[in-house]
């Protein structure tokens, strides 16, 4: 069974003349453990698609199934629990709280999940060690370099053992060398821990490293590398 199954998803904003169709009927499946790149220019609808995949937004029509469960049936605390347990987010702009320590930033998902303080610390330190940031745990997030910030974000994405990591332009704010390191980390997590990796990007090189590429243009899936191969 695919971990994510998208069927004829449409999403439109506004009404009447102002109506804007961001997605015009997109269908695909993602298997567990795959690394998938969603590629498109800005305005192509790829961000909208990612938000729908992350359960942050609901499609106007069509269905998104997460492990066979129609996500439109998820409500309230069940939806929140699913978000918390299933996804790890890596954003281009990091979204770190500058004045808090690196450790506090990393354990935020655990705090939200309601995990106790000692367990939080243990798992937070473990995630930081994994990303070779163990010595930065007590530093303020604002004092980190770009690469360190992105690694902190990855540690935060990892800390609650998610099934899927959603990365939105993960290397967009990094120089080539640092970006390559971050890419390596993400793909090794995908290979070694079996975490499904979904990367939203317009960087062809990053996309090329993924198992599969989905090209989005004007709200439509115009090319699926898996379909081409098959």
């Amino acid at each position, binding site marked *: 069974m695919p971990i994510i199954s998208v069927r004829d998803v449409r999403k439109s904003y506004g009404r009447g003349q102002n109506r804007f169709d961001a997605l015009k009927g997109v269908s695909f499946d993602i298997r567990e453990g795959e690394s998938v790149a969603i590629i498109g220019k800005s305005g192509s609808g790829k961000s909208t698609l990612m938000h729908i995949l992350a359960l942050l937004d609901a499609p106007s029509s069509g269905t998104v199934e997460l492990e066979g469960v129609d996500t439109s049936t998820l409500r309230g605390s069940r939806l929140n629990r699913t978000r918390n347990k299933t996804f790890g987010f890596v954003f281009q702009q990091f979204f770190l709280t500058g004045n808090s320590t690196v450790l506090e930033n990393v354990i935020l998902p655990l705090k*939200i999940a309601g995990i106790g303080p000692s367990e939080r610390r243990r798992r937070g330190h473990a995630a930081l060690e994994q990303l070779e940031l163990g010595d930065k745990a007590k530093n303020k997030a604002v004092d980190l370099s770009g690469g360190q910030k992105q690694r902190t974000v990855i540690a935060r994405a990892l800390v609650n053992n998610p099934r899927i990591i959603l990365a939105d332009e993960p290397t967009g704010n990094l120089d080539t060398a640092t970006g390559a390191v971050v890419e390596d980390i993400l793909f090794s997590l995908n290979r070694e821990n079996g975490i499904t990796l979904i990367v939203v990007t317009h960087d062809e090189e990053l996309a090329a490293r993924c198992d599969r590429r989905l090209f989005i243009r004007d709200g439509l899936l115009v090319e699926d590398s898996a379909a081409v191969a098959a």
Partner: protein
Amino acid sequence: MRTVDLIGSAVSNTFRSKTRTILTILAIFVGAFTLTLTSGLGTGINAFIDDTVTSIGASDVMTVTTTPEGATGVDATEPVEYNPDAIASGQPGPPGTTVVALTPEDLDTIAGIEGVTDVVPTRSIRPDYIQAGDGTKYVIGVGSLIAGQTIPLESGGEPDDDATEPQLVLPVAFVEPLGLGDPESAIGQTVTLAITDAERTQHLVDATVVGIAEEGLASPSGAAIVPNAALSDELFEAQSIGLPAEDVERYAQASVFFGPGFTDEDVQALKDRLSDAGYTGSTVSDQLGLFKTVIDGIVLVLNAFAIIALLAASFGIVNTLYMSVQERTREIGLMKAMGMGNGRVFSLFSLEAAFIGFLGSAIGVAVAMLAGSALSSALSTSILADLPGLTLIAFDPVSVAGIIIVVMLIAFLAGTLPAARAARADPVESLRYE
């Protein structure tokens, strides 16, 4: 998110933007400070009045008259010079007074009323004047002590009822005008009281000053001497000369004793029974009720000003938190993306508001208590030195805790607006927000 983590996050978020938080706290501080001082003022003055109740009269006594209106007026605060042409109203009954006397039959009736344990008639003694040596003559009244009453004394002692020689306690205001020097030197000196009997003959009675009464807000004596039994008897006998026997046993009022365990309802019930029998009973607290009502009214107005200050401060909280929500839009979006429920986001910001309220009020209350205590101790030795026993600003733990809770509640309510905005925020929009 666990509630304890929620509170912890709210507290640490409060200190993220220190300047802004401190300014908001200051605004609340002013309100809480004012509110604490004004309510402390009410507490202090009312406590003073309560204390004086015990010196004015025991709590298990009420004054009973047959007239609908109280027979007592406001005592003169200044000594009034004696005018020989003024008509003294002696025993109840002379023309011009509206007092309907209590007769021995009345006393028996009252004693028979349920709840009354004892009836003691108050003898009305109306001396013409008081004079020391050949000095100026001053008008003075005669007060009396009932069981449980004390006179706050400036010097000397209380009149001795067992003594055979006439003694009296003089109000401190009369010491100098009478030419007795200071309160210490007045003790042991002899003063002369003049009293006119029913045959218009003036009698002079000499008495020794044994004590000088302090001036209080409502002291038992007021502008009146407190005689001992010997002096009281002597004056009453002199005054009663020439009165028919039945007129001697006429009393303007009587003290009615009831059980010490009487609640306010019991006292009210007793008053109702007295009223049915045609008498009016009033306790000391009844007479002080007016005082307290006036003071409560003033304190209420002052408190209203403090509340207005707090309302202004609450807009500061709204503003601070709106800015905070604006600044942390992406953080809110992130927390929601990570599965934080809207309710918890709402709680996070409301708790932040409540915590700001708590800080402001706790600091405000603490500083107000320090300032209030310093102020009232400074005043009690200067401007208010004439009112011994008055702590102008007093604090009781319940009202102080109440103020903190009220301020926190106001802050919480102010925080709900920005908190609701944060809770409503769409995570997608929030994450896009630059």
